[in-house]
């Protein structure tokens, strides 16, 4: 158990180190002055004194390893740099955005898992029948669909066309709503992006659940359960599904990066003010500190989610708990 976590811990530490080092190196290894990337494109308009002051602040006149030390120390204080465009600390900007993404990704992850698991179980139970074959086809089709395009179609049909949902944003600005009215407004804005993200996440959960269920159904204890007279429903839920769930939780973790990536483009389509949309805005404005800060925070969140899933895994699989 301790070794299991030490191994995983090393892996997450390496991922963190990779993200931090990449962020540090990118502006410094690109051709031209790193100041262009660190402080904005208007370096040409700065006075020599200003340039010297910035060079001093980032430690750009020192050896690379010293700069790395300065960079890490800043990071440890929660300093992600300053936005070129907005002139505010990057950490402050991200803090205002990250909640929306957490809500979107969190809810969609739960919904997609529940639906994918139910769908996969049903398909495996009817292996080879029309339901199963049709489901496989539908899952493959959905899997091949670009998420942002699905979002655009949803907006065109349900928001702009039928006017059932808002076209953009996370809530109606300046509506002065409070309490339940505001919650309803937020949910109304969330509906379409949530549906899009959930729909593109379901196929992964479905495919792995179906596959895992088929494996479990071939096991001898399923035959044993049947032969001792357990009803079909009991076999399906109590014996097969519970065991088939284990690989799903592993895929759940592996897919976090994929889901966060999906959220990035979907937030862009819906102008949803999360961290993915921030990434897009930063690309448009060539706001490199915001770009780097967003990447860093997204990576840290994915690592945190992985650790949470690792901690929950023993609750799902007792064998991990006892095999110390």
């Amino acid at each position: 158990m301790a070794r299991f976590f030490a191994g995983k811990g090393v892996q997450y530490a390496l991922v963190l180190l990779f993200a931090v080092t990449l962020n540090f190196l990118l502006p410094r290894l690109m051709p031209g002055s790193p100041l262009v990337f660190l402080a904005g494109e208007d370096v040409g308009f700065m006075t020599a004194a200003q340039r010297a002051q910035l060079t001093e602040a980032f430690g750009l006149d020192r050896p690379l390893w010293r700069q790395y030390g300065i960079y890490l120390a800043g990071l440890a204080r929660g300093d992600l740099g300053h936005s070129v465009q907005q002139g505010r600390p990057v950490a402050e900007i991200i803090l205002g955005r990250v909640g929306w993404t957490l809500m979107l990704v969190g809810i969609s992850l739960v919904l997609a898992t529940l639906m994918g698991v139910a769908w996969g179980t049903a398909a495996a139970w009817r292996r080879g029948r029309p339901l199963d074959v049709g489901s496989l086809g539908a899952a493959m089709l959905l899997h091949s669909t670009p998420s942002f395009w699905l979002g655009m179609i949803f907006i065109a049909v349900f928001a702009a066309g039928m006017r059932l949902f808002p076209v953009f944003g996370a809530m109606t600005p300046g509506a002065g709503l409070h309490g339940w009215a505001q919650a309803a407004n937020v949910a109304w804005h969330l509906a379409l992006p949530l549906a899009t993200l959930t729909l593109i996440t379901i196929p992964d959960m479905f495919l792995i659940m179906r596959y895992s269920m088929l494996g479990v159904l071939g096991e001898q204890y399923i035959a044993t359960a049947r032969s001792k007279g357990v009803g079909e429903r009991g076999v399906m839920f109590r014996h097969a599904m519970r065991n088939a769930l284990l690989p799903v939780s592993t895929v759940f973790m592996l897919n976090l990066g994929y889901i966060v990536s999906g959220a990035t483009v979907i937030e862009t389509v819906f102008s949803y003010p999360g961290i993915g949309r921030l990434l897009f805005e930063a690309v448009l404005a060539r706001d490199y500190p915001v770009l780097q800060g967003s990447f860093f925070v997204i990576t840290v969140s994915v690592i945190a989610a992985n650790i949470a899933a690792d901690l929950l895994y023993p609750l799902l699989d007792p064998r991990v708990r006892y095999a110390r």
Partner: protein
Amino acid sequence: MSRFRWPVGGVGVIGVALLAALVLAGVFAPWIAPYRPDETTGSPFSPPSRAHLLGTNDVGQDLLSELIFGVRISLTIGFLAAAVSISIGTLVGVVAGYFGGWVDAVLMRLVDVILVVPFLPLMILLAAYLGPSFWNIILVIGILVWARPARVIRAQVLSLKSLDFVDAARALGVSSGRILRRHVLPGVLSLSLAQFILAAGTAILIEASLSFLGLGDPTAKSWGSTLYYAQVRSAFLSGAWKWWVLPPGLLITAAVLGFAFTGFALEEILNPRLRR
């Protein structure tokens, strides 16, 4: 054993047919397309008409021609990025699987790290620094998609390594390089081919996302770029979505599905262990 056999042949035929149609459209684009894609041939934002079957874009270029020429860009980027990633993946997988020990441990750690990092934010970061260009997109996709194939190929090498003829070759004193080239690589190449097809589908989907975010090559419009301009000009808020947004998305889906079906069918044919 089962009442029904998943129609591998059927799926493979659909996949190959989809890909063949797209490749032909790409090769013969200048003859099929009614106009040059970079020519202004109508007034901006025209709805479909006899002269422009899918209407025109924001600068009066024919959308149908843009999509037909877009086949070339999207498929080429998909193929090249997949080639880069499968080359890296095969090399890493073979080396890690064959040599084992600390080499394997280090390489697989690297694979694990790459798999955990959220790939699209990372690609956006890299593409933003490198600047939007044809080769940069290929490079960025290629150097980040190799991890999954590397894992699959390593597993294959591990099982090949335990076979008698590899042991025999080693006992006869054949050098590692020769064993790898003559005995291990041929057993892995067919699997690499299946992985290559699957990776090409992934690459097309990623390219579409990057181009949609405005990080694609501005001089060569792929399907993702067409959707980027449709988004920037708010085509999906008007009726224009039916001819400006719908077709490129359907083409992307068809291409990705074509690669996925072909890849799965190939995998099933080439990997006897998957057969029932």
